């Protein structure tokens, strides 16, 4: 098994951070790709973030009410080794060097 860490994705329109409203999954949960993970609020609106990945939730970052910056770690999944091989493993606690859009396009801009 391998661990995959995902950061808070780019929410568009120059938004740099979001507040965690409520986690919809917990550590130990098995989640499907596109399953809603967490509700977050920006200065613009509140949104539900879908999962970029199927797997078991190993860690979620940030309790309800805490602020998280775009690019900072949001959630860590445990996935079978061959799955990790396909998409590449990301070091668990280090933010990725390059920001990538993880989800289906949340915003056109």
């Amino acid at each position, binding site marked *: 098994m391998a661990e995959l860490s995902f950061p808070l994705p780019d929410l568009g329109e120059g938004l740099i951070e979001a507040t965690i409203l409520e986690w*919809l999954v917990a550590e130990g949960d098995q989640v499907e790709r596109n399953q809603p993970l967490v509700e977050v609020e920006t200065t613009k609106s509140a949104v539900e973030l879908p999962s970029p990945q199927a797997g078991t939730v190993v860690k979620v970052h940030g309790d309800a009410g805490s602020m998280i910056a775009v690019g900072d770690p949001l959630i860590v999944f445990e996935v079978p080794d061959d799955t990790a091989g396909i998409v590449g493993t990301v070091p668990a606690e280090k933010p990725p060097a390059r920001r990538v859009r993880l989800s289906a396009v949340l915003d056109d801009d």
Partner: protein
Amino acid sequence: MGRHRDHLVEGSDPQLSVALHPPASDAGLRPVLLLHGFASSTKLNWVDTGWIRYLNEAGRTVLTVDLPGHGDSAAPEARDSYSPSRIRADLLQVLQDHHVVPLREGVPASGVDIIGYSLGSRLAWEFGATQPELIHRMVLGGPGSGDPLAAFDLAAAQELLAEGTPIQDPRTAELMRMARLVPTNDVFALLTMVEAVKDEPFTPAEAVPRMPLLLVAGENDDLAATAQELADLAPQAELLTLPARTHANAVTSRAFKSAAVAFLAA
């Protein structure tokens, strides 16, 4: 979509963006019409917040409409296009176009359910009061007995746009902040809507919906502080309060969604 209509309730096609979102597995219940709030859109209010997915997963067919001057709908110049009475006529047209039939006892697919948020709840309240034969149940999010748009300081908003003068009234300032944050919003169309709403302010006691209502408000939603007064006007209304939520962030709440789906399925 703006399709040509042969039998318009009002004389002209309002060119509203209407979309049908069918579920993968249909529960066989009536469609759910979603009405978004001021300066929002189907996308911001219902798609990005996970509502359409949640309703579809519950087997519900969803019908969405962008209000005039919002989302992908046209933004006409004429003030009349934005009046609540004109919008109610256009909503009736949308339901007719989608073959919504009057409620019939024992026919779960007849009629329509409605979920509104903020201004959408005000429109739903009036629409429900005037269309009891069509509407089964309604969920009204972020509702109040007052009318935040009627109290909107239009002159201050225009000065802000023209001169950059800060707005003193906090609610006007917040509504303008929201209106301008979304680059696709047509601020002038939104101000025309405010003018139209001022002509027809919300007077909920005048026409009261008599079908079962679920009112849902964030505990810290100051625009919905009068939700209980609104509930007291209706013969069959219950109020759900969402702890710690505000007018802006109650809309994604899982407790709100699950309560709405359960209430509409009854």
